[in-house]
């Protein structure tokens, strides 16, 4: 589903990603771990076509990265920023994105999603008034509107407390289903639990690859070994 060949991204003179080769199969859940500055967010942004690679190639769903618009149709991205318009209500935000993504039966779809994600009571509220956790859920709803086969999650647990994180990850597990997912996270336990495959990114390169099942107890040592940092 996702193929990356020799991917590199340079910011000025700093190579944040270099010579990355990666394949993610359809329906696979890939967890990407790594310390801050390892290039996790950059990788996700390149996949989301928010950034252009400085070298290498990328294909998603068989489409080359040149077909930006077509690739984006297949993606649902949840990043650090909510990507929501603060002055508009949740409903208006979802309607906007539904129209941009050509979602068929938009109203019904929005209603259904809102029900499932427990957002119905907040539909008429301006996004500015929502709590961080609610914004996160709304952001995920936005990403799922068009039923994308690929979901990209960038440290979804950031900024949420324990309880909210637990709810969030539970919600995610419910929606993942058959989709291909790439998730970056600092939460070792959840990452290992949810991922079919785990990859460690260090200084822009993949230094470790492992398949389920992985032992949560010993993993911190492995992590340290491959990154020189504690999770």
């Amino acid at each position: 589903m996702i193929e990356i060949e020799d991917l590199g991204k340079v910011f000025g003179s700093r190579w944040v990603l270099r010579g990355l080769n990666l394949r993610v199969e359809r329906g696979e859940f890939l967890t990407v771990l790594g310390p801050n500055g390892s290039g996790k967010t950059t990788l996700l942004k390149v996949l989301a076509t928010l950034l252009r690679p400085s070298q290498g190639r990328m294909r998603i769903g068989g489409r080359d990265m040149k077909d930006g618009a077509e690739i984006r149709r297949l993606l649902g991205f949840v990043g650090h920023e909510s990507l929501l318009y603060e002055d508009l209500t949740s409903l208006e935000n979802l309607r906007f994105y539904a129209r941009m993504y050509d979602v068929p039966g938009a109203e019904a779809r929005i209603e259904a999603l809102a029900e499932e994600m427990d957002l119905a009571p907040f539909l008429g509220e301006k996004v500015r008034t929502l709590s961080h956790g609610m914004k996160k859920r709304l952001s995920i709803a936005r990403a799922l509107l068009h039923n994308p086969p690929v979901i990209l999650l960038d440290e979804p647990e950031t900024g949420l407390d324990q309880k909210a994180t637990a709810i969030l990850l539970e919600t995610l597990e419910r929606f993942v289903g058959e989709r291909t997912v790439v998730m970056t996270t600092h939460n070792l336990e959840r990452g290992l639990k949810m991922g079919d495959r785990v990859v460690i990114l260090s200084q822009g390169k993949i230094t470790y690859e492992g398949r389920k099942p992985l032992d949560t107890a010993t993993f911190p040592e492995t992590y340290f070994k491959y990154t020189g940092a504690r999770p």
Partner: protein
Amino acid sequence: MKVLDRVLWALGLVGILFALYLVFMWVPTADVREGIAQRIFYFHVPMAWISFLAFSLTFLGSILYLWRGTKGWDHLAYSGAEIGVVFAFLNIVTGSIWARPAWGHWWVWDPRLTSMLVLWLIYVGYLLLRSYTPAHQAPRFAAVVGIAGFLDVPIVYFAIRWWRTLHPGPVIGTGGGLHPTMLTTFLVSLAAFTLFFILLARLRVGLRALEAEIEETKEAWRE
């Protein structure tokens, strides 16, 4: 310095000295009213031409950088802009110096001089944009400005000229043709400036490339 650079330097120096001699000793005064100030023309106009030359390098480099992505083109674009800004500035200043004895004011809204001022501002914008933008975006943004600015130049000149038909005023510059002695002097001066320009361009591009290399080495070493 490489051999070619030395040659350029030597030839350029000779050219400039020769031009100075021609300008101040040899060529007759063209306009008695303007007096010695008129001789600025032999420097003022070549500076304009050189700045255009420089900015066309920027134009070329910008297009190729956006198309190909190789840093070398960006170095060329940047160097062109820097040199162009300097020569445009000199052109404006010499123009002002010329205007004073010729018309009594330090500034006359002459179409060419005014256009040059606008052009200078456009490329000052280019340079400042580069300092204020994060490194990974700077070359691309600058390339856009490099292209837009260059394409804008004829439009600016045209608009200012038309504007001036509505609000006429003094015009700097020689009307009519050039006497052979004047032409010779002009061409010598132009040639000398061009040689220096080529030298400067080569040196500056080389310097940029070195700077970039140093940055990359520093980054690599940091890891």
